[in-house]
């Protein structure tokens, strides 16, 4: 049965389908509908309207440790606050899903026009080295599907997986038949608290015992964690590619931007990463190779363009769409001017 569903609702329903047991958040546009939808489910799941975003992510960490699949959702200002918890979940290896519906920043910025300016924050907003798994859907159906995949990836990687949306996508309503979407579900990967004498800590530790002054050990530990993240990421290498043998330019875009530029696929080739991080280096290198030019169209001042350039090790042109408005005609003109 087809239903008219909003992006945010699809995220909430995807989470429930994935087995969500705990949700905590703090209201913020354009993410609040996720919270509103899940508030209705209080009783079926544990729901907390927390005092702030720091509390909500830490509650999610606690609930995950206690045995529930957990999620929190927010927008840019709250995402900045959640970074502390993201680092903790990375260090303690706690599965968790963090949804960030992006709006224009910095700070309170332009509430609540859409943006893609949290891309680097999603990758590296917490301090220290870590690899984040970041997904970015581009339709309501994908909001559902990739929320489920985010939960799967969180279980497999035991890490806080980030689901990026933008205000457009979150508030986009489309007709979808959710029952037609096929997926598999990963079970809980972590034995819940109350089953042993383990010690979970934000300190670097070895078998639960803090080990904070051994550089050699840090290097081993980091290599293991990095390896783990990369090998899980391999299983979630989602992207879309519209090949165009006549084209000389490859456009790269994600989320709402990818949808807006889709009509250009007759003139350009288009690559749409769904897993934004770790950057899909393998497919990207292969796909970009035949094209003379690579242009990244995004609603930030070249945040992802820089990442692509780093991976491709060649010039990558950035086409920023700033200030919360996006028009195909403007993008066409900007592309013609390159």
């Amino acid at each position, binding site marked *: 049965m087809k239903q008219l569903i909003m992006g945010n609702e699809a995220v909430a329903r995807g989470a429930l389908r994935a087995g969500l047991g705990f949700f905590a958040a703090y209201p913020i546009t354009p993410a609040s509908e996720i919270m509103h939808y899940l508030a209705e489910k209080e009783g079926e799941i544990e729901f907390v309207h927390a005092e702030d975003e720091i*509390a909500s992510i*830490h*509650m999610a960490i606690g609930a995950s440790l*206690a045995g529930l699949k957990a999620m929190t959702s927010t927008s840019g200002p709250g995402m900045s606050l959640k970074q502390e918890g993201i680092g903790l979940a990375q260090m*303690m290896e706690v599965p968790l899903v963090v949804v960030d519906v992006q709006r224009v920043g910095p700070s309170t910025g332009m509430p609540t026009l859409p943006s893609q300016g949290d891309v680097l924050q999603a990758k590296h907003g917490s301090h220290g080295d870590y690899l984040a798994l970041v997904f970015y859907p581009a339709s309501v159906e994908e909001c559902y599907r990739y929320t489920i995949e985010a939960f799967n990836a969180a279980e497999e990687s035991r890490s806080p997986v980030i689901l990026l949306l933008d205000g457009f996508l979150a508030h986009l309503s489309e007709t979808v038949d959710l029952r037609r979407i096929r997926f598999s579900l990963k079970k809980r990967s972590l034995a819940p*608290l109350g089953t042993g004498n383990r*010690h979970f*800590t934000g*300190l670097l530790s070895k078998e639960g015992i803090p080990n904070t002054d051994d550089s050699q050990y840090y290097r081993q530990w980091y290599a293991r964690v990095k390896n783990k993240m990369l090998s899980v990421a391999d299983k979630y290498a989602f992207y879309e590619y519209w090949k165009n043998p006549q084209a000389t330019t490859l456009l790269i875009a994600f989320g709402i931007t990818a949808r807006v530029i889709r009509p250009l696929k007759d003139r350009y080739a288009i690559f749409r990463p769904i897993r934004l991080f770790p950057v899909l280096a393998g497919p990207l290198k292969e796909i970009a190779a035949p094209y003379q030019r690579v242009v990244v169209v995004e609603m930030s001042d070249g945040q992802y363009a820089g990442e692509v350039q780093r991976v491709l090790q060649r010039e990558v042109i950035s086409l920023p769409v700033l200030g919360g408005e996006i028009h195909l005609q403007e993008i066409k003109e900007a592309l013609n001017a390159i």
Partner: protein
Amino acid sequence: MQYKDFVKWSRWPTTWCGGCAIGIVFKQVIFSLERMGLAQNELTVVSGIGCSGRAAGYFNVDSVHVTHGRALPVAEGIKRGNPHLKVLVFSGDGDLVGIGGNHLIHTARRNVDLTVICINNQTYGMTGGQMAPTTLKGTKTLTSPHGNRYHPLNIQGLITSNHNYFYARSSAYHINHLQKVIREAFAWPGFAFIEVVAYCIENFGRRLGYRFGYEMLLKIKGIYKINRSPKERLKENELGVLIK
């Protein structure tokens, strides 16, 4: 389990300095756990960051040592995730009342069924002895070298401003009282907060002229009196329990 079984001996010795009060309080907790007859898988301990925050790792149960100030939200998530677990929060005044103050207000308001032990040593011990929200007016610390200009936060007032509450004040000297209060707090069906008057010799007391930890312990003995049936509020020099 015997009290010794609640200790994770593989972690010995602790990071706590000789003469520190935290170990005394830790010991009263494990005595209480034995007396209450808890099993290993019935309890989890959560700590924030600080010297007091190291306590979680010394309990021989599943334990969590989180970021600075966030012990309460993590503990709340755990309790909601598994209501059958007893969740003990053991942390410092800087952690719970300073940086974690907002969480304290709201976890208490939501009356989450947790037992909280707050080591009030009136300072940020781990970082070298800066002033805390609990430092008395006039006290010299690293960040109040001319004497603290502010009055300390009224933790009792904050907790007891709620519709329901369990607020206790005990001390590292009055260990029988402390044990009793810990047992009562565990039995309380809601948010139970125990402020334990403690001290830090190395990074606080020495600057104030104390030479040994026990001098600070005896100072507490001299000041505090147990009030077994307090009316509405504990006086500044009183130990006791307020419930509603």
